[in-house]
Structures are given as C-alpha cells and as structure tokens.
C-alpha cells in the first residue's frame, strides 16, 4: 500500500471518528444537564487525550523521522545532474537501472522549481526542490523498470504545468 493511500485512510478514519463525536454532541446538546458532571468528563477525556498524544503519537512522530531523505549515500552508483529552467528540465542522462540507488543532484538556473518523480502509474514517488544557488541531493531506488516522468511541483510561472520530462528505468545494471 502506498504512503498516499495509508495517509488517506488514516485521515478518513480520524475525521470520521471526530465527526461521530461532533454528531453525538449535536444530538445530545438539546438535553439540558448540569455542567459540572459534563465538565468533569471533559477534563478526564482531555487528560486521556493528552497522554495518548504524548505517549503514543509523539514517539511515532519521532520514530517516523528516521525515514528522511536528508542523509545522502556517499557513493550512489548512478548520478543524474538535473537543472530546472523556465520551463524545461535539463538532465545529463535520462536512463538508469532499476534496483540500484540513483542520486539526483538538483538545482535551478532561474527560479524555484519542484523536481517530482512520478512512476508509470502516475504516483508521486519522490521529490526535492530545485533552487537557484543550491544543489539538493536526492537518492532514490527505482524498484520497477518503466518510463518515469518528472513534473514541476513548485509554481514557476506561465508554463509551469507543462514542465515535464522523462526518465527511462531499465532492468539490470547500468554504468554510473
């Protein structure tokens, strides 16, 4: 299951749960009760919610940070130098092999662009910003051969939506 699908399901479940609570409040609001017991319950729920957020959510958030794109492998066997221009991508190679890390060295010659890699099914699999004056190094392993597209993901002017190029991922090994 993709990260996008996990996120969508998580969001759906959480919002449905919240909706159920809000709906219950709406239905029961028309019954008049003393505030003190309601408030006491709310304080208990608040305390439980707080400790769940701290003891469960916070460790998960910290644990998830280990999966970050900032640590670049020292020797990626394949390297693509990519430069964004208004409104096209300049790649020094457009073919790589599946199964081995590819290091993208991404920059821009003019304004900010976004270097978004889409797999053959149209799913975004990795990205980094292309910024003038900086080289962002993104390492990605293509697991499946096919034609991948690079779409611009940072608004860069009139032809932003057509700033697309292609990377061919082949089976087997390719010289770096």
């Amino acid at each position: 299951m993709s990260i996008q699908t996990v996120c969508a399901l998580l969001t759906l479940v959480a919002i449905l749960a919240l909706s159920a609570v809000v709906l219950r409040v709406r239905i029961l609001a028309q019954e008049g009760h003393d505030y003190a017991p309601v408030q006491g319950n709310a304080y208990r729920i608040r305390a439980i919610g707080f400790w769940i957020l701290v003891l469960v959510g916070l460790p998960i958030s910290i644990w998830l940070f280990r999966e970050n794109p900032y640590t670049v492998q020292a020797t990626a066997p394949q390297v693509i130098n990519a430069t964004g221009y208004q409104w096209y991508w300049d790649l020094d190679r457009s073919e790589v092999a599946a199964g081995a890390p590819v290091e993208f060295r991404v920059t821009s010659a003019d304004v900010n662009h976004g270097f978004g890699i889409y797999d053959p099914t149209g799913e975004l699999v990795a990205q980094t910003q292309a910024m003038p004056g900086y080289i962002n190094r993104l390492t990605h392993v293509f697991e499946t051969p096919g034609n991948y597209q690079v779409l611009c993901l940072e608004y860069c002017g009139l032809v932003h939506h057509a700033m697309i190029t292609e990377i061919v991922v082949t089976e087997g090994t390719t010289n770096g």
Partner: protein
Amino acid sequence: MADATYTQGRVATADRGRLWVVLYLATTGLVLLLMMLAGLWMRLAQSGWLYTDPALFYELMTVHGTGMVGIAALGGAAVLWHFLSAYVRLNAWVMGANFALFLIGVVAILVAEFIGGFGGGWTFLYPLPAISQDVWPAWAAAMHMGGLLVIGVGFLIWCLELARAIIATYGGLGRGLGWHVLFRGSTQNVPPPTVVAATMVTIVTTLALIAGAAVLVMSLVNLAFPAVEINPLLAKNLIYFFGHTFINATIYMGVAVVYELLPRITGRPWKTSKVFLAAWTLSTTMVLIIFPHHLMMDFAMPIWAMVIGQIFSYVNSFPVLIVTGLGALAILHRSGIRWDMVSTLLLTSVFGWMAGVIPAVIDATVVVNSVMHNTLWVPGHFHFYLLLGLLPMIFAFMIYLARDEDVTPRGGDLMAILYLAFGLTFVTMFLVGGWASVPRRWAEHLPEWQIWDQIAVIMASGVITLATIFVAMFLVRMPAMLRAR
C-alpha cells in the same frame, strides 16, 4: 489543578470601532464572494469544462490566494476587535487607518494582476516576481509587492494598537497571556479567553509582518537593482515564516467568536484555566517555530529545522484538539440549547478547525511530505480550516451582529448544514487529488484527474450560493446596524 475562573458576564459589546467592524465585515463578505468565484473559475479550468488561458489562470490564482489571505485577516480582525473592545480601550482610528491602507493595497494588487498581468502567486517566491520571461513587466511585480507591503503596514499598526491596549490594561503581554496566573498562581486580573487570544495574535502577527515586510523590501530592491541579489533560501524562509504565521493567526483571531458566543448561547462559562493558558502559550511558541514544515523538500535546510518542522507541528495540534476543540464541545454537550444558524456555524467551525489539523499534521511528516508536498493535499488541508473553520466563525459573527447581538435561537440551521456538506465534499476533492498525486497550482489537469475537479466545481457552486446567502443576511441589516451604533 486550581482554576482561576473568569465567568463570561457581558452580553452586548459596545465597541468604539463599530462602524469599522461593520465595514470590515461588508468588505470581507464582498471580496470573499469574488475570490470564491475566482476559485470556482480555476476549478472549472482544471476540470476541462471551461478553457482558460494559462496566463489568466495564474493571475486568478494569484488574486485568489492574495485576496483570501487578505480577507481572512480582515474578517478575523473584525471579530477580534469587536470582542476585545469589551476588555481593553482601543482607538477606533486605527481600524480606519488599517482599512484605508488595505483598500490602497487591494487597488494596487488588482492593477498589478489585471492590467500588469502579474501572476507570481500569493507567495511571491523570490526570484519569480523578477524573472517571468517577460510574461509580466517589472512594474507589475513591484506594484503587487508594494500593495502587499502597504496592507502589511496597516495590519502592523493594527497589531501594535492591540498590544498597546493590552499592555495598558493588563500590564504587559506576558500578563495578557496569563503568565502571572500560569507561573505564579495569581488569581488577580485574570485575562479572559479573548484577551489571551488577542495577545497571542498580536505577538505572532507582529513578528510575521516584520519578516514579510523585510522580504518584500528586499525583493523590491532586487527588482529595481537586479545586481542586488537575495539568498533564495533566506527569502524562502522569510516568506514562509510570514505566510504561515499570518494565515494561522487569522483563525486565532476568529476563535474569539467561539469563546464569546458559546457561553452566551449555553449559559456556561468558558474558564480561563491554567491548562487553557498553557495551551495558548504553547500555541504562541509553536506557531512561530513550525514554519520549516513548508521547507521539508529543501534539503539544504539544516536537519534540526526539519525535526522542528515535523515534531513540533505535531505538538502544535494539542492546543487545538484538546483545549479549544474539546472545550467547545464540552460547553455544548447536554447544554439544552436549540440549534440555530449561529450555533450550528460555530459547531461547524470547531469541527473544521479540528479536522483540518489532521491532514496538516500528516503532511508535516517528512516521509509523507516527500510524496504529498505541493500536491492538492496541501490546499486540501488549508481549505479545510479556512473554509470550514475560519469562515463559519466569520459568518456566525455576521449573523450575530445582524441579529442585534441577540443569541436567542431563531429559525432553522439547514443552510449551515448544507454549507458543511458542500464544503466538506469540496475539500475532500482536494484531498483525493493529493492522494492521486495531482500537483497543485497547475493551470491544466490531465484527463484522469478531472473527475475530482468536476465534483469540486459542483460542490463549490453550492458553497458559493450559501456563502452569498450568509453575506446577504449581513448586508441587508447593515444600514440598521450603522444607525444603531
């Protein structure tokens, strides 16, 4: 924990800027509807139902984003000013000055966009305003950013007036945040929730506006003298610090209507407890430091900033979810009220704010951001808490004023429920677009994405119809409100 209790006592608020509050709201309503139509036009273009030249699309996008941020602040300012007036003495001329500067800025921005053809986005991300491949002239970029600067100066004056009034009444901004209660256990001069919110707003907005003004001036200098360059990463940090903080502050302005009206509607007090004060101090800090979650795909950023962006964005959800959100639900629960338009809009706003936090926190996780950043997931989450959080607060406030500040339930709430239904489906289409990896800010969409756009168009039409009714309910009562001031 001992609570220092403030019980809501006042009913009607005789604010000295009433004329301006009404004008702010009228302007908010009218500009809102125009901006919604611009948004509808963009979704029509993306859906394939209405061909739109990309240059026009990006002008509309720039106007829509800039205009919505502007009226979010204008509407939020009206709400906060009105209720804060009950506790501190505010100078009404500041509202007038801010309004005048706002209108000057709006005219400049409209000229820049529709005559100059500027389409650099509301984020004016350096160096795009200066480098458009001659799509727009430098004067248009200068006029757009100059207009923003003028508007920012107006809101800065407005914030400083709030700060002055709070300091004069409570003895300092720390006391406005209730630190004497929180840290020293005092029970004297306890700030009510609205004052606490106003103190937070004035602190964070002032800092945001200074950063925004700095980067705007730097960008203007760069436009005039291209040899004077800015570090793009510094510019991006300043822009997102400004943009993130300013737009977040608008909902913290608007929440005053929840704090003030729910106690009046239910007859239950909203307590200024130590937990409440701690939550607002936490929010004050967090809102200022979590903006790096907008820069997670800038790998040149220091890794500690990314840690802050992820971990503290998550922590920042605590005050919204378990203090303001839960507090509002507790006040309503078994309160014996009869639902009407105002109370249902307030409940909607609490739901919208709480629910909007969920996709936002998820996207602020680096591993997710890598495949969700700058997809439609992002407008999904911010439309969630602007369309279903902030706007229902402003609509509730409009209707409350139109009803002469009488919270006695009257009429039904069908329109508020329909607004929620249309709005929820509309924002869901953005989130679905994010799930499907659709990039944001694209003038043209691929055919396989357009089904979500087409559903969004239908839902947006419903939202606009209902928003028009809410605004009209306010506008028809405007002459009477002005006569009664």
